[in-house]
């Protein structure tokens, strides 16, 4: 089964390197542009959140990513040793009625939920391990 791994550090400048790696991996796995684009967006949202919020010690931390081909499409696993955070427990996004009432921010987790067909989280020792599944067929559901 196709699987590729990458380790980056907690620096937002690493996101472009991550996306380039993901693009190569998706091409090698023949995922197609649609699935590759959704994986790229999921990875950007998840890892930007980790880099921005998971660490408060100012130290260098590694974040490991793994993309795997599945019968339904692909799965992306992200592993970090930041503070415990279970995306599945984050409150659901509430759609504002107007731009004036909109609270700005916090859409990353909502997008990951919209883009994925399944999500699994576990705390493994000192690590957050999150796996998101993405189907070949794009989902269009609204939470």
């Amino acid at each position, binding site marked *: 089964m196709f699987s590729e791994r990458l380790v980056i550090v907690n620096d*937002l*400048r690493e*996101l*472009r390197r991550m*996306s380039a790696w993901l693009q190569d991996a998706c091409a090698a796995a023949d995922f197609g542009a649609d699935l590759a*684009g959704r994986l*790229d*967006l999921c990875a*950007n*949202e998840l890892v*930007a959140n980790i880099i921005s919020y998971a660490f408060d010690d100012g130290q260098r931390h590694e974040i490991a990513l793994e993309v795997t081909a599945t019968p339904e499409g692909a799965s992306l696993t992200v592993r970090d040793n930041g503070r415990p955070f279970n995306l599945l427990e984050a409150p659901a*996004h509430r*759609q*504002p009625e*107007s*731009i*004036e009432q*909109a609270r*700005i*921010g*916090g*859409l*990353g987790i*909502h*997008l990951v939920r*919209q*883009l994925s067909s399944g999500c699994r989280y576990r705390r493994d020792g000192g690590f957050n391990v999150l796996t998101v599944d993405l189907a070949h067929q*794009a989902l269009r559901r*609204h939470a």
Partner: protein
Amino acid sequence: MNIDAETLEGNVRRIHLSGRMDVQGTQEIDLKFTSFTANQDAVIVDLSQVDFLSSIGIRTLMLNAKAVTQRGGKMALLNPDPTVSAVLEMAGIDTLIPIFRSEADALKAVSP
């Protein structure tokens, strides 16, 4: 990312964005975007050359749309590509900031 702006008929400010609107791309254009919408009552943001949009880019679009709207002005998005369009819909932005396929329609919508 690249950003430029021009003023159209009726004092409508048309902002053109191109590139990848991820963390790095958005940081590159964020200040200029805000300066281009400052004191503008009618803004059209051309997204046709944006090939990737993540939540940080959506944040910038929303902040500027909110500021323009709170002044009593209007901001519209023009021509996002299908991928970017899907992200805007998933984020529910299409119901908060109007999206148009033609510049004429966008102009009509934002003009006072």
